């Protein structure tokens, strides 16, 4: 109780509670719907819950086999209880993220307190993380990284505690060993991170009782060994092969083009054969290409444009026109770095924080588009928060007390202004601007199609811009055991649609297959219900119903939250000619 009476702890609890509210408010509506990967999480958790297997039929897998790829398992397992409670819904899929996101707040507080032993730094770090758009957004969506951040910060906290009370080292190694189970980036980052903490605290670790060190290593190995084998031999490396810079499909072309430029042949139009120069070959080859891509990605990871102004430009990863941090924190990151560099802090602390900061984007820099990819770069977030907190404190410290109060007030007003502006954009505008990217409309379309399906011989669900099979499985709660037995046998060549999956009387044509509105009449046969996304038709048939050809009939329209059509359902119009 004494612990709870402390004013500081009360502040921590209040900030954490507020952080929780910000992270859970309107979770069913903002982001506007579950997007493909989130539906996948929900359906995998549902499948485990019902059958003990992933929906492809693998028993308690270490990498979940999805329709598109193999996925890391821990978030999917974490979602089982919430999906059990709330079903495959935004709350069911996103609640683990909200919980881990909220728990990261006190974790960062206790971590900074352990590092600096200063109340102000830790409270400030907590407050900054609480209002950081990057963390808010990823704590509200079914991405795995919010869980990853919690495991990493809490694991590090326990490691630091473990240097004094060695039993904590075992728990720390368990948490850290689980990080690759959460998200692919951690598979590359964990070894680097372990080297960093070993380099920095080697002398202290050497003094720890061997009993605990061995136990920690054992715990680590027990968790990591099977996962390592699953990664190498069980398809877990598939995702990295897909996105890594080493498999860039543009690489050969780019190297060749650079050699042409270097040789000067580009100036001679029509030259098809050229001799690449020696210099051209020395500087334009795979090695330099990887080095160039990696260094560009790495440097861009720290770009102020990404961090404080525009953020990740993929709207599903960030609110449009907002940075990953509030822009007012930009200069403080810089001040924090120099404060730590020349300030009076322990050498070990300085070394660790700098190594932590500079190593955290490495894994992301190895991937294509990894430069400004907020999901892959989330490992940078905790160290950045620490540096920003140091910077703010330093800035407030250099002025006189009176000036500090004035500047502090000014900073608070600006921070509050930006934060309110962010929340306004996030809750009231972001859902409209990104509804299509969050695959809104699928839920209504699937449920409506399911209720209508009894009337039709065939329900054909177009996959014009997205594979619709997964959405059907997820939103209709299709029995996983049935899917496991049916998939992938029932795939047949459907006339006018190509090779399609068949589940009952539902058909799912291949991705990208679409039809023009005016070509639909001969394609939609008697007894067919054709479900098509708005983009395939590209006309607002609610406002312009006269465009619908007489041979087909619009049965139902599903809408986006903004009120624009998301899906149309057509059937053959049998009244024509009567």
């Amino acid at each position: 109780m004494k612990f709870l009476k402390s004013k500081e702890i009360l502040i921590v609890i209040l900030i954490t509670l507020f952080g929780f509210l910000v992270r859970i408010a309107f979770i069913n509506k903002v982001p506007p719907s579950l997007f493909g990967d989130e539906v996948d999480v929900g359906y995998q958790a549902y499948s485990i819950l019902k059958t003990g297997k992933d929906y492809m039929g693998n028993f308690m897998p270490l990498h979940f086999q999805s329709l598109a790829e193999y996925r890391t398992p821990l978030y999917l397992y974490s979602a089982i209880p919430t999906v059990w409670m709330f079903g495959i819904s935004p709350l069911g899929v996103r609640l683990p993220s909200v919980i881990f996101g909220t728990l990261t707040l006190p974790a960062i507080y206790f971590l900074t307190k352990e590092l600096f032993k200063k109340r102000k730094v830790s409270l400030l770090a907590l407050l900054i993380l609480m209002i950081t758009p990057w963390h808010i957004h990823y704590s509200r969506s079914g991405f795995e990284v919010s869980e990853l951040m919690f495991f990493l910060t809490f694991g590090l906290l326990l490691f630091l505690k473990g240097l004094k009370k060695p039993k904590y080292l075992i728990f720390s190694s368990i948490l850290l060993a689980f990080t690759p189970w959460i998200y692919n980036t951690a598979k590359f980052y964990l070894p680097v991170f372990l080297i960093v903490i070993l380099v920095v605290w080697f002398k202290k670790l050497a003094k720890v009782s061997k009993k605990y060190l061995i136990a920690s290593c054992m715990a680590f190995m027990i968790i990591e060994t099977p996962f390592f084998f699953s990664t190498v031999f069980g398809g877990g490396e598939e995702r990295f092969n897909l996105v890594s810079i080493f498999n860039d499909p543009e690489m050969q072309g780019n190297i060749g083009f650079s050699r042409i430029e270097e040789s000067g042949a580009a100036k001679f139009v029509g030259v098809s054969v050229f001799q690449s120069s020696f210099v051209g070959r020395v500087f334009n080859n795979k090695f330099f290409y990887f080095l160039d891509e990696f260094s560009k990605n790495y440097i861009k990871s720290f770009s102020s444009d990404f961090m404080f102004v525009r953020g990740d430009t993929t709207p599903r990863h960030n609110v449009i026109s907002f940075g990953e941090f509030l822009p007012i924190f930009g200069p403080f990151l810089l001040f924090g770095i120099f404060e730590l560099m020349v300030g009076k802090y322990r050498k070990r602390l300085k070394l660790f924080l700098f190594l932590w900061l500079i190593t955290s984007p490495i894994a992301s820099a190895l991937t294509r588009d990894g430069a400004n990819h907020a999901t892959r770069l989330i490992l940078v977030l905790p160290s950045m928060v620490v540096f920003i907190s140091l910077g703010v404190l330093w800035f407030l410290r250099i002025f006189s007390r009176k000036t500090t109060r004035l500047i502090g007030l000014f900073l608070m007003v600006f921070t509050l202004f930006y934060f309110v502006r962010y929340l306004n954009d996030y809750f009231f505008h972001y859902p409209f601007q990104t509804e299509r990217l969050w695959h809104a409309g699928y839920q209504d379309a699937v449920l409506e199609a399911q209720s209508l399906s009894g009337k039709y011989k065939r329900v054909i669900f177009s996959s014009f811009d997205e594979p619709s099979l997964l959405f059907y499985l997820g939103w209709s709660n299709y029995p996983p055991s049935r899917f496991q037995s049916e998939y992938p046998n029932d795939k047949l060549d459907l006339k006018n649609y190509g090779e399609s999956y068949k589940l009952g009387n539902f058909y799912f044509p291949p991705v990208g297959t679409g039809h023009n509105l005016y070509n639909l009449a001969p394609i939609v046969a008697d007894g067919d219900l054709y479900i098509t996304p708005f983009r395939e038709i590209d006309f607002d048939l609610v406002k312009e119903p006269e465009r619908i050809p007489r041979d087909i009939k619009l049965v139902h329209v599903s809408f986006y939250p903004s009120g624009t059509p998301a899906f149309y359902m057509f059937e053959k119009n049998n009244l024509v000619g009567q």
Partner: protein
Amino acid sequence: MITRKNLVYPFLIIVLHQLLTVYIHVFLFPIGYLNQNLFILDLLGKSYTLSFWWIFTLDALNVVVFWLLGRELFSKYSYMPAFVYAISPWGSYSTSACSIYVLYLFVVLAFFYGLIITKKGSKKGMLIFVAAFFIGVYGSFYLFVVFPLFILGLYLADKSLRKMVGKYMLFIFLIPTSLALIVFANWHPFINILSNNVMLFSDPGLVNVVNQYRGESDVAGLHLMGRLSENRYLFSLEFLADKFLLHIMPATIFTSKEKLLGFSFTPPIFLGLIVPFFYGVWVLINTKRQLYLIPLSFLFIIPSLLSKEGISLNRFIIFLPFLVYVLSLGVAKLLENKQRWLRIVLTSTALLLIFQILVAASDVRTREFERYIRYFGQNYEIVDK
């Protein structure tokens, strides 16, 4: 005192800078800016095009003034500002494309030099200061706005300068006042110049965005809040604030995110200097040395802020003296500091700088001209909007 011995470094720096400029010019010729005229000539309906040799000479003089400024501001490392300017591609690119902003940069530098030596008691300084003020105000529409505002700011912020400026106040304000009379007599040309130069608010997208946001607020049931928070004025202010942030972002200055001359992949200042720059900012704030200069310096962003383009590096170059000052301060302090950490930083800065210069030199030789053709076709003209 200037002796033959201490002229060796500045001379070498000028040669280095001219070599860089000529190197770029050789590969970019005949690409250049269009429609550049002095403000007063625009008002009077006359035109005069500054020829290449003028701009090249002014560019060399810029190095000299940077060196002179260095002598006043940095005792031990007086050549540092000139060196930093000399190895930065920004000035060289502007010169090679014959930008009138090289002249304006010279005027701004002379203005500061005059101000600094006047503050130290030199009467010659006041002459330089007033001459630069006169050329700036009559020569550029933006400096007509920025210079008086800057002087006003100094007057309010610096007590020692207040006395000095106060002494010559009447004389100083006679210059813009006389020009104001000319403006009044040539009102229509002035309105044309105004609308050609201030393109910021002529973006029709602004109204669309406001309407869209209001609509979204209405759908969310927040009609009143929508009217209060989503309006043209607040959006313009936010747009301006965002644009300002973009200007002071390190990526704008140290990477090729914003393109020099609208197409180049060479950064305005090499990325290798980013750490000394940050260190300079930190030192500036830590020592609380004339902190009022930071907000005042932002006045020189106005020309680029008002451009239609996101950032006009051509106009933004008049902000360069502040960047060079902070950079030089950073390098000088790094050189003075004996901490091992900072030594490592300095060494990596030097290595990165050498590497980048080599890469940029190769890129200019092999790709820059083709890049221009790819972006703009073959008319070799750049228009600053």
